[in-house]
């Protein structure tokens, strides 16, 4: 296997390389193996409730790749920590908003719609009695998540609504939040 740099692209609508997007979809239709991707994050405890993840390598389209740099994200606890970063839960909100936004940008590009603004606020409610073990009947995770989008584009409101709904439907993070996923957590053998 080779290590490839992610290539930079120039033929873009909304900054989305549409030709590459359609080309990739066509290739994966013919060869399902190319659609197998694997992502990973490496996390390191800092102190107290703080830790940081670094994200660099990923696998997809039949090869190993590196992001243009090693990205680092620190997280901490809101009340017990020392302010190294936002909470892990907030990263989930960021992931959801970012994932749907990417879908809006590609969906608009595919339909030839020029975007001038896409902003959103993701908000979640959580009853922390669940994570604190105070009440076993209270769910540990979010009880509800809302994402409010402000999209400005050369399109009718109904078309923008359809862009948002479709980007949501095809969002990986939305799917992970709304449907169960098998998660295995264990001590790595040394």
């Amino acid at each position, binding site marked *: 296997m080779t290590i490839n740099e992610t290539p930079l692209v120039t033929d873009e609508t909304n900054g989305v390389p549409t030709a590459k997007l359609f080309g990739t979809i066509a290739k994966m239709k013919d060869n399902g193996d190319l659609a197998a991707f694997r992502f990973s994050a490496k996390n390191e405890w800092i102190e107290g409730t703080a830790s940081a993840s670094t994200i660099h390598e990923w696998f997809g389209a039949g090869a190993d790749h590196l992001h243009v740099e090693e990205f680092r994200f620190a997280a901490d606890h809101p009340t017990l920590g020392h302010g190294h970063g936002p909470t892990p839960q907030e990263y989930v909100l960021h992931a959801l908003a970012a994932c749907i936004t990417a879908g809006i940008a590609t969906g608009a590009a595919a339909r030839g719609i020029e975007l001038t603004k896409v902003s959103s606020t993701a908000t979640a409610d959580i009853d922390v009695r669940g994570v604190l073990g105070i009440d076993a009947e209270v769910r540990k995770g979010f009880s509800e998540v809302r994402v409010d989008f402000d999209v400005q584009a050369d399109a009718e409101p109904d078309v923008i609504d*359809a862009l948002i709904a479709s980007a*949501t*439907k095809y969002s990986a993070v*939305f799917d992970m939040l*709304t*449907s*169960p996923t098998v998660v295995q957590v264990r001590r790595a053998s040394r």
Partner: protein
Amino acid sequence: MNPTRTTDVVVIGGGQAGLAMSQCLTSRSIDHVVLERGDTANSWRTERWDSLRLLTPNWLARLPGWSYQGDDPDGYMSAVEVATYLDAYRISIGTPIRTGVEVTRITSSGGRHVVETDDGPWSARAVVVATGACSNPHVPSIAADMPDHIEHVTPIGYRNPSQLGEGGVLVVGASASGLQIADELGRSGLDVTLAVGDHVRLPRMYRGMDIHWWMDAVGQLDERYDEVDDLDRARRLPSLQLIGSPERRDLDLTTVAANGVALAGRLVGRNGQSAQFSGSFANMCTSADLKERRLLDRLDEYATSHGLDAELSEATRPAPTGSVPPLLEADLRSIDTIVWATGFRPTYPWLDSQLLDHKGRLVHDGGVLPVPGLYALGLPFMRRRKSSFLDGVGPDATELADHLVSYLAHSIARSHT
């Protein structure tokens, strides 16, 4: 065993598609035989629930050389009435049909196709597969994860509420079948939960006219397979949330919920004694409402551009799907039956696997298979949006019959040179 009989064309299936093809072949003087596993219109006789009526009005049942002549053109035929309608069609066109014949294998070589059956083999120069789109219910693999006490039913096995026990029912799928069955079970007093995924919502009547009148008028049903953006997706589109009832009532998530059916997201898994549903319900409803609104906008534009606004009643739009918090879990101990209204996937165990794609679907271009002389008819969006409808198979049959006749003529020319 019978000796091999020879004909020009073997048509497999004696439903609307097989009969329409037979009419087209007869009118082109092509020798053929229709092989039917049961009786004419077998699925309509034996594989439909008691209360089922067509989603399309009676006048929208045109077949080559045949149309509805009864006294209720705006009504909706019951399954038995469809079978009777097709039987009368068969007699009028004099279809050479062999009933009670099961096809077991088709092999092709050197321009001839051998159709093996439990009544002996047929040899033909062309074969038309017209076995229907709604004979093999698809049940997702998650069914195998459900507890042992649960009875599994598909729309083909379902007849009426009295066939189920008194326990709770989970209906999976909110297309026409799932919604109609959930509605009927809910009205009969059973505890019903409906798992809702992607769905297409439409009002029965709009501005005083049947929704199918509109779709026929604006040409939506005639959209061709080589004109749509994503044919694969168009072919997988769930059936419309409609019911053909004498009172022409609407059937959607709001109406079934008002009858006591509990709504849930898409069924996604089992955790211990709980069925788990996706939290995507709200987005599914938003999408369906949006698509409905866009279609109705298109209908209004058509009315205006054709000067029909004065004749039609005022445009009142259906209310958006209500925001009742959907269930995320259901206790499987209180569910005795699961109705899998999760679509149909035709299977072809008697065809060479090379004719099928990796998902077992027939590979074809508008009904023309890659092996010369093999054709398919009556599949969803085969050549146009209405391909799998009673009213839609005719134009496809006509086009394929022309293709077939020209193929037979050329293969004769070749064999004589």
